């Protein structure tokens, strides 16, 4: 009964305070004004958690009985300068890699970076679970070499979720980074394979409570790596916002499971926060696509263009405009709403776009930005890119806040977005995107649609009837080049 051994109260309290710091870190994100303070709370919480853990090993610090009981020399070993140097060295290596990456990474590559970071949390969870399995005494979760059953459940869960997070995030990273095709890859009979693998994991995890043999534990890990891979491979590029949020959630649940093993409040609170954060983000993304979470996870969406329910022939008449036309229309307008999408990120057009906005504002045009929740490859992707280009955040609006304004707007400037503007989502019941909330750009007096060519369709594989409307003018070019030309024409 390890909990009954006198617990150094300050240790438990320190972890609790760390947990509260993490809550405040997320709380700060409710507004850009408090967000930086929130981030500092997060850092403080982490320093407290790591510091407490390290200090427990110092003389007089005492050990948390949660892990102390089985330790032969609770004080001596920890102070070994070699061990301490190893630990500090490991932290320094990680810090170096992390800081350099954080500084060098381009904002457009943020989705990949987040996926890569998720994979690290997942792997760390697997490693900690494996270490706890190999040396349960150090974690105080075993009696005479027999690991407590509850701990086995927690450990198995932590390892399984961690492994799924790892391999799933690696695939998400490869897809987002372009090392792997963004198209869904469909294995024959994948649902049967996936369900079979999941059932095997659950079965073995249950068996693990009866038999703590190594093969059980490591088979659970191996199968979980496999299922993470199998789950993400069939999911297409534009569904990545859901996938990235889901993996975010998983990394939290993995941390929480390990927190249960260690009886550590900071880990449990953090795991719950991160888990619910990712789950809520996945829900928001699914709602913004009017799709169920199950259908996203089942994958395969956007794979076959034959699903095009709009059925409109490509050879309908449409209008083509030039950069000069666009510049003229916008400079005459009272209000312009810019609708960015993933194409803007690919073309790195955000800086040119802000320049265009600045010139228009100088001419007395009101410029606003409208963001669809699933624009880009991760939640909030467009907001970060616009912020990077120095667009003030109070000019950037979410769908529900700005949708009513299109009717009072002279020019809607759609750049790199497609499906999220398709009016068919409101009218055409046969369309695969029917019911998805879309930006009402067609209500603006004129729609300027920047697109590479007329041939390509959006991710959903549907033709956009917006292209053929009387009030739409197509600007066919690379997004960045087109905006730069408009800037030239305006200046």
């Amino acid at each position: 009964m390890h909990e009954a051994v006198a617990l150094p109260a300050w240790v438990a309290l320190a972890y609790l305070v760390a947990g509260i710091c993490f809550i405040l870190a997320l709380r700060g994100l409710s507004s850009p004004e408090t967000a930086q303070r929130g981030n500092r709370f997060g850092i403080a919480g982490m320093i407290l958690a790591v510091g407490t853990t390290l200090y427990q090993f110092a003389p007089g610090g005492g050990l948390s009985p949660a892990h102390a009981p089985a330790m032969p020399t609770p004080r001596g070993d920890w102070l070994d300068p070699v061990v301490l140097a190893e630990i500090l060295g490991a932290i320094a290596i990680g810090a170096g890699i992390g800081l350099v990456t954080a500084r060098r990474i381009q904002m457009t590559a943020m989705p990949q970076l987040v996926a890569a970071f998720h994979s690290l949390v997942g792997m760390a969870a697997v490693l900690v679970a494996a270490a706890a399995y190999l040396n349960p005494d150090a974690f105080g979760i075993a009696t005479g070499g027999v690991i407590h059953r509850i701990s086995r459940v927690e450990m198995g869960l932590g390892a399984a979720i961690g492994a799924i997070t790892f391999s799933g995030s690696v695939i998400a990273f490869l897809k987002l980074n372009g090392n792997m095709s963004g198209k869904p890859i469909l294995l024959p009979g994948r649902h049967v394979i996936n369900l079979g693998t999941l059932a095997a994991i659950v079965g073995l995890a249950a068996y693990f409570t009866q038999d703590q043999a190594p093969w059980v534990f490591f088979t659970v890990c191996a199968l979980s790596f496999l299922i993470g891979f199998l789950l993400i491979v069939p999911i297409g590029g534009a569904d990545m916002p859901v996938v990235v949020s889901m993996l975010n959630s998983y990394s939290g649940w993995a941390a929480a499971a390990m927190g249960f093993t260690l009886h550590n409040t900071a880990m449990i609170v953090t795991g719950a926060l991160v888990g619910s954060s990712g789950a809520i983000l996945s829900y928001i993304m699914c709602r913004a696509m009017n799709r169920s979470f199950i259908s996203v996870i089942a994958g395969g969406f956007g794979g076959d263009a034959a699903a095009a329910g709009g059925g409109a022939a490509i050879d309908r008449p449409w209008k083509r405009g030039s950069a000069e036309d666009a510049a003229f229309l916008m400079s005459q307008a009272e209000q312009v709403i810019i609708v960015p999408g993933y194409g803007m990120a690919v073309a790195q057009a955000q800086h040119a776009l802000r320049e265009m906005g600045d010139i228009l504002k100088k001419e007395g045009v009101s410029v606003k930005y409208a963001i669809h929740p699933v624009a880009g490859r991760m939640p909030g992707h467009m907001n970060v890119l616009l912020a990077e280009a120095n667009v003030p955040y109070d000019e950037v609006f979410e769908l529900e806040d700005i949708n009513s304004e299109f009717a009072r707007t002279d020019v809607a400037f759609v750049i790199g977005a497609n499906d999220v503007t398709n009016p068919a989502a409101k009218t055409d019941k046969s369309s695969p995107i029917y019911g998805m909330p879309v930006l009402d750009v067609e209500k603006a007096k004129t729609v300027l649609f920047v697109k590479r060519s007329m041939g390509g369709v959006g991710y959903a594989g549907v033709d956009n009837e917006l292209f053929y409307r009387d009030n739409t003018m197509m600007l066919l070019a690379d997004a960045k080049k087109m905006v730069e030309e408009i800037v030239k024409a305006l200046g």
Partner: protein
Amino acid sequence: MIVKTRLERERPGRLSTSPCWPANVAVDPLGKTTLMDFISILSIFVLACFVGYFVVWGVTPALHTPLMAVTNAISSVIIVGALIAAAAAGVPGAKWLGLLAVVLASVNIFGGFAVTARMLAMYKKKERR
């Protein structure tokens, strides 16, 4: 180095200064106390989920990317487990896994907080003249 640690542990002087811990832990693996412990931390977990639910719905959608970055950083609090494994003697394999986990979690902690700070510094208000 591991050898050295073991040697140290075998020094009788060290052992005599610490109480004999293992004697205290004899308990049924699924005994009553362990179950109550489990339920008390489960309570913390469930309540924290509710806190998370309300806090995260309060996050402005414009900051969803920094939210992911910072949740990433804080979920690396799993480093606590990695530190315990890395510091424990006895099973070299577990120790090295722990050290590797410390490296991975540190990448995340430093990288996650730094990239969040970098992003948040970009969010600026309109200059009002």
